[in-house]
């Protein structure tokens, strides 16, 4: 991974302590964010997000499925992440398995809520077509193409962009004769419903280095972290999920403090993403 000399490490730590990081950013400044939508035309929705040298693709595919018997009124969403060896030669073979699993689970936690589906960032009941019978299964796949830190936030942003790029075909359900029969469904080729992303949260990871914490850490900065807290926050300012990583323990009061900072940062990030996404969609329409 990242090998740094003692001098470089101290330089990075010093920069964070003095609120001037190696690339000139303040502790709570993001790298420029670049969004491109519709990169995978075969999917229902897709987006590519770049933050500095971090480059990820998220893709949404919708398939018809059957709701689980425990939650007949909810659709299903699955999130998987893969790390391509193009990003890092060490990801070759099974080299990225752990990281991929970690990212997948963290995203599920941030976006899908618990097993009951309550508190999910993605509105699962909007995916139901006929209660207990037919629903949409959303498969959200992330792919890390190039990695330079802050993968989770980038993936979160890419998923948000991909979802707002997602059109789900309108489905007509023929009234079935008896309740036991499989309902006949007719998927429209022309009519698409825009997926509602108003509830989808953004993920803000605060990485603690020394006594301070930073957003959007590069991989060099991440190598110096003592711990990191990823918080997903929606437009209403509610926390949708939270993950703490890293070995060092955190004082509970610091965590509360970090959450309030993350909430503040998330508003800016949300606005930035909104404008980038709409710019990207405008670009796509032009083509």
């Amino acid at each position, binding site marked *: 991974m990242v090998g740094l000399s003692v001098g470089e490490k101290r330089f990075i730590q010093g920069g964070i302590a003095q609120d001037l990081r190696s690339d000139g950013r303040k502790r709570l400044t993001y790298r420029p964010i670049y969004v491109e939508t519709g990169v995978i035309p*075969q999917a229902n929705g897709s987006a590519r997000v770049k933050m500095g040298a971090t480059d990820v*693709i998220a893709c949404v595919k919708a398939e018809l499925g059957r709701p689980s018997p425990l939650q007949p009124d909810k659709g299903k969403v699955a999130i998987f992440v893969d790390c*391509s060896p193009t*990003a890092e030669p060490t990801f070759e073979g099974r080299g990225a398995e752990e990281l991929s699993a970690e990212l997948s689970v963290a995203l599920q936690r941030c976006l899908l809520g618990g097993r009951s589906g309550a508190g999910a960032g993605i509105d699962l009941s909007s995916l139901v077509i006929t209660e207990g019978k037919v629903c949409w299964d959303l498969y959200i796949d992330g*792919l890390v193409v190039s990695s330079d830190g802050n993968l989770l936030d980038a993936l979160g942003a890419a998923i948000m962009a991909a979802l707002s790029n997602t059109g789900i075909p309108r489905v007509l359900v023929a009234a079935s004769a008896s309740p036991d029969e499989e309902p006949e469904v007719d998927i429209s080729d022309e009519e698409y419903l825009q997926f509602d992303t108003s509830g989808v949260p953004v993920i803000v990871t605060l990485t603690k280095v020394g006594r301070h914490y930073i957003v959007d850490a590069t991989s060099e900065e991440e190598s110096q972290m003592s711990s990191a807290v990823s918080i997903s926050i929606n437009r209403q300012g509610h926390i949708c999920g939270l993950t703490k990583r890293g070995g060092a323990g955190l004082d509970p009061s610091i965590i509360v403090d970090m959450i309030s900072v993350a909430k503040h940062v998330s508003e800016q990030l949300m606005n930035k993403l909104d404008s980038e996404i709409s710019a990207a969609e405008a670009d796509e329409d032009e083509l």
Partner: protein
Amino acid sequence: MEFVNPEGLRLDGRRAMEMRQLRAQIGAVSKADGSAVFEMGNTKVIAAVYGPREVQNRSQQMSDQALVRCEYSMANFSTGDRMRKPKGDRRSTELSLVIRQTMEACILTHLMPHSQIDIFVQVLQADGGTRSACINAATLALADAGIPMRDLVTSCSAGYLNNTSLLDLNYVEDSAGGPDVTVGILPTLDKVTLLQMDAKLPMDIFENVMQLAIEGCKAVANYIREVLQENTKQLEVRRGV
């Protein structure tokens, strides 16, 4: 099923000898030594090259030539119906091998002894002809990494359906059960380096189909040369002195 209608148009509106639109972009992964995105119609592939660099596993080091390695991977979302395949299934292993052998044949490996070159190809979208697209992307990435090569290998496929030879099959045509002939050539040396076919075909028709695929390779080669030429020119212009 009718793959070529009476007017001679294919399902996606192409003529029999028409190739899908080619698009290439050099420099997609900033950290890699060389990288490229290559698109043939809806098929879209990223290739990244790392090296030549110190051999990571010392027992594989060779004192007279470079070690060339390749890994092919497919994104979960790349196929029409989404499936989650474990990494390193047989198909990917075979493809990795094919790409490696094809690229190794054109890299001047003896100029870089004791070193290692890694080629990673990642399929973003598969719509037939991934093999060819991977090879074309890898060629671009290797050229971008400044690795010396004999020639620019290019690849293209052709098939035979409804008594017609068809160039550059897409997924629907590929899975129609007809033959799929994938050819890789060294265009300036005029040599075939890769040839694969998966169905039976009379000799004379095979010749015809292979010739068509070779023509396709040449068209790809012309396109790739243009892209590289323009890229080199841009780099030199920007650098200034």
